[in-house]
């Protein structure tokens, strides 16, 4: 709610602008106990922290929160992100006071409740992925990828196969895949996809060889289609001595329908913050559990929960001497893992299968509606998986209405934008993933909004270009942001 008197005031002043010297939230002050810091080590000027009342802080962050789109307030068809309902029960029970208070290095005897959940989570994730071993510690998908590629590397090295330093990735792969390979010291070899969105087998055959450590694949691919030749790919890579990595970001599409282990993958990470519905929190935390087939079992990152009879305990380097080691100070994002555990228990065996089915149903329905409404699918011959791509190439050419314009205008209609300009190889693309938790009515409303925008593109293109209009800010100047870096607040001179 902006003051009509000051049209260009910021929607909400920064907390620093609201600070007044000497103000504080007294109920939060610990007792004043003196502490003697050696003079040379003492801080001389106080840090720039705001001095506000508790009410000011509450009001500020509550108002800021209202400036966000979120699952709890909007339909969020953001492809590759699986923005589905985050059940509140998962949060409530993961945040029971005893769970929150438990120190990660606390005695195992006072952690059996927590460890039991983690052990069962490992087992359930093994079952849905078709893998033989599971480690929960990676703190997001990218760290799961890192663990996976590091295990592949350790495997080859362990066999004395030292020349394998190439990781193959399809050109449509998510950016984390090549970035991870590089971070593991690997060379990245890109291969193209064909006109149907399948991996170009011939190209793959050309690049695999004695330098191949492995291939990283997402299946369904980031093009929103199922990699139909997966068996052939697996054969090619395995025959060349490489291993197959499964980027599980898109697992929601096939949950309970196909298991990566059964497709021939040797290692997988799963984004629990996608398929298993832990919240995204405006940019994390995530959890990227890694699962492995027998060949990689010895290399799993530590710690892993083991079971001795009725007791659970952490397995560490003593138990897993070939482990690639630790990825975090403790055991990863425990609270996220608890949420995923609760979610999986609430969904249950049959529910897992239904997730894949209804995510796919919603995507295919939406695709069909868009097709009827005259929009262009990127792969018109293919089924949608849990997501699909529209290309706005025609609209951009004929009316100058880009994918970005559609994205921004959608915000005014109360819909979050789909993923734009990813994957890079489809021009003017919108990657749309409705998820299984949205109703038919929500999907219909979204199609209607897109139709209305297309109409506007024809009738009033300037209006479209100026969107959004109803949010706290209009389109932002990204170029200026990068050119005149303003990364921290400074007092007005």
């Amino acid at each position, binding site marked *: 709610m902006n003051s009509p008197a000051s049209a260009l005031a910021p929607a909400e002043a920064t*907390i620093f602008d609201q600070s007044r010297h000497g103000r504080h939230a007294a109920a939060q002050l*610990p007792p*004043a106990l*003196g*502490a003697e810091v050696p003079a040379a*080590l003492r*801080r001389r000027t106080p*840090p*720039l*922290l*705001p001095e506000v009342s*508790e009410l000011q802080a*509450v009001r500020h962050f509550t108002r*800021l929160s209202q400036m966000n789109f979120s699952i*709890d307030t909007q339909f969020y068809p953001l492809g590759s992100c699986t923005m589905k*309902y985050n059940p509140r029960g998962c949060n*409530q029970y993961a945040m029971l006071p*005893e769970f929150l208070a438990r*120190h*990660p290095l*606390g005695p195992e005897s*006072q952690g059996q409740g927590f460890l039991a959940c983690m052990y069962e989570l490992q087992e359930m994730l*093994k*079952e*849905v992925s078709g893998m033989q071993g599971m480690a929960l510690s990676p703190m997001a998908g*990218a*760290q799961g990828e890192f663990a996976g590629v590091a295990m592949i590397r350790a495997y080859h090295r362990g066999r004395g196969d030292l020349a394998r330093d190439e990781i193959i990735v399809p050109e449509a792969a998510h*950016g984390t895949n090549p970035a991870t390979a*590089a971070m593991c*010291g690997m060379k990245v070899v890109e291969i193209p996809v064909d006109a149907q969105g399948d991996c170009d087998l011939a190209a793959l055959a050309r690049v695999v060889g004695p330098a191949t450590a492995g291939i990283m694949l997402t299946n369904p691919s980031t093009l929103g289609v199922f990699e139909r030749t997966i068996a052939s790919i697996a054969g090619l890579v395995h025959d060349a001595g490489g291993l197959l990595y499964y980027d599980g970001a898109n697992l929601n599409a096939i949950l309970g*329908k196909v298991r990566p282990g*059964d497709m021939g993958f040797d290692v997988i990470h799963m984004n629990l913050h996608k398929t298993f*519905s832990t919240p*995204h929190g*405006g*940019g994390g*935390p995530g959890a990227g559990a890694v699962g492995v087939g027998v060949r990689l079992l010895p290399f799993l990152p530590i710690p892993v929960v083991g079971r001795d009879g009725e007791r659970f305990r952490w397995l560490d380097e003593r138990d897993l001497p070939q482990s690639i*080691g630790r990825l975090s*100070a*403790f055991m990863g994002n425990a*609270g996220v893992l608890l949420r995923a555990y609760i979610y999986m*228990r609430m969904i*249950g*065996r049959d*529910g897992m299968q239904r997730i894949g*089915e209804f995510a*796919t149903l919603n995507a295919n329905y939406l*695709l069909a509606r868009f097709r009827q409404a005259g929009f262009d699918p990127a792969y018109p011959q293919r089924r949608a998986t849990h997501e699909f791509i529209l290309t706005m190439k025609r609209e951009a050419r004929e009316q100058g209405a880009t994918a970005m314009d559609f*994205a*921004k205008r959608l*915000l005014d209609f109360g819909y979050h934008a789909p993923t734009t300009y*990813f994957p890079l190889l489809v021009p003017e693309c919108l990657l749309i993933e409705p998820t299984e938790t949205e109703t*038919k009515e929500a999907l219909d409303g979204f199609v209607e909004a897109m139709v209305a925008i297309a109409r506007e593109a024809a009738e009033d293109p300037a209006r479209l270009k100026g969107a959004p209009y109803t*949010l706290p*800010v209009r389109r932002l100047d*990204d170029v200026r942001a*990068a050119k*005149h870096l303003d*990364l921290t*607040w400074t007092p007005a001179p």
Partner: protein
Amino acid sequence: MAFIPHTDDDVRAMLAVIGVDDVDALFDEIPASLRAGALTRIPPAASEMEIGRLMSARAAADSCELNFIGAGAYEHHIPAAVWAITTRGEIYSAYTPYQAEASQGTLQTIYEFQTMIASLTGMAVSNASMYDGASALAEASLMAVRAHRRSKSARILMPRAVNPTYRKCARVIAGGQNLSFEEVPFDAAAGQTPVAALARFDGQDVTALVIQQPNFFGVLEDVDALTDWGHRNGALVIAVVNPTSLAILKPPGEWGEKGVDIVVGDAQPFGVPLSSGGPYVGFMTTRMEHVRQMPGRIVGRTVDLDGRPGYTLTLQAREQHIRRSKATSNICTNQGLLMTAATIYLAIMGPQGLERTASASMARTAELVAALGRLKGVELALGGARFHEALIRLDRPVGPVLEELARRRIAGGFDASADYPELGNVLLVCATETKTSEDIAAYAAALGESLRVSRAA
């Protein structure tokens, strides 16, 4: 069908629009041979009511009365407002703020976080968070190699007084790119890393020197001298800090003559519960000149079409979604929610609250050390000034004593003897502002008893 809203009518109507007979037809591109069977090892669905009872029982089983463990994760008071706001749907269930106009709340929060963390550490710029402190150290090491163009060695000096799991984690993550980490010993009496220990690297190509303040033992290092050694020897300096301590300790940006180059740590002490180890929130700050080498997201302030101020992700060309294999890191999803909690925590605590938290923690640890030191069979293991942790030495193996304490519902500290066998039976203890004199007396009494019991056994 938990969380799936479709009615039978919906399904029928949707299938008709798609033009297939049943949902199974939508999977016809998947080779039949690959289709999964029933997931028999997954239990059947449980209702929220059932799972709630199960979780409550499991949580109750894990309860503990008093915790004196630190070792990288610290129990501090968390104002109720922090999580009341952080769990609001608009924060909790939002995605990464790629659509800036629809994410000004998250973006402004990050901008405020960046400001606070940069100022606390005394550096020019901060990113929007890293996974945790340990992985942030790994990223800082990789960043140092990128940022230090003249150094070719990719050699990082790592004091043995740095948190052992941080050291392990850095090796695993940065090891992929063939960085080498070389250990710097500490003085076994003072628990400090002496500048003298660096002498053997004088004049060599060292990419970076790591300094942890306070170090793993809670001891305060001579950060000025260490930093100056690093810079004199052409190395970058990476500080690892407990952010609470920065309310009273000199910020890394002011260490030595020039200040350090990169600062990392874990902001868990800022409003993030212990919760068995995560999610926490790593942070990283640096000099402006290195900003393009920094991993992770960064938010900048800019203006909109009308000239109104607003916030957006910036310098994205560093990141994997743009630069792919040339990115500064593979990090994508990070710790946004915890970053939000930390920002709200700092806003509520303010400079005075944080200063009191730091001082009270330091004072309580001093009180704890004094109380425990009076017990038979207990001595302070290391001299020197301390922040809020201390290493004490027992006259017998630590493990069984901790088990005795656990039976008294006290988490008594971290058994550091495996990581530092040279120090004997050492236990790292920590008291923060959450502990009262009565708590400390209760711990001392319980430790006395536990020692007696284990002596008798």
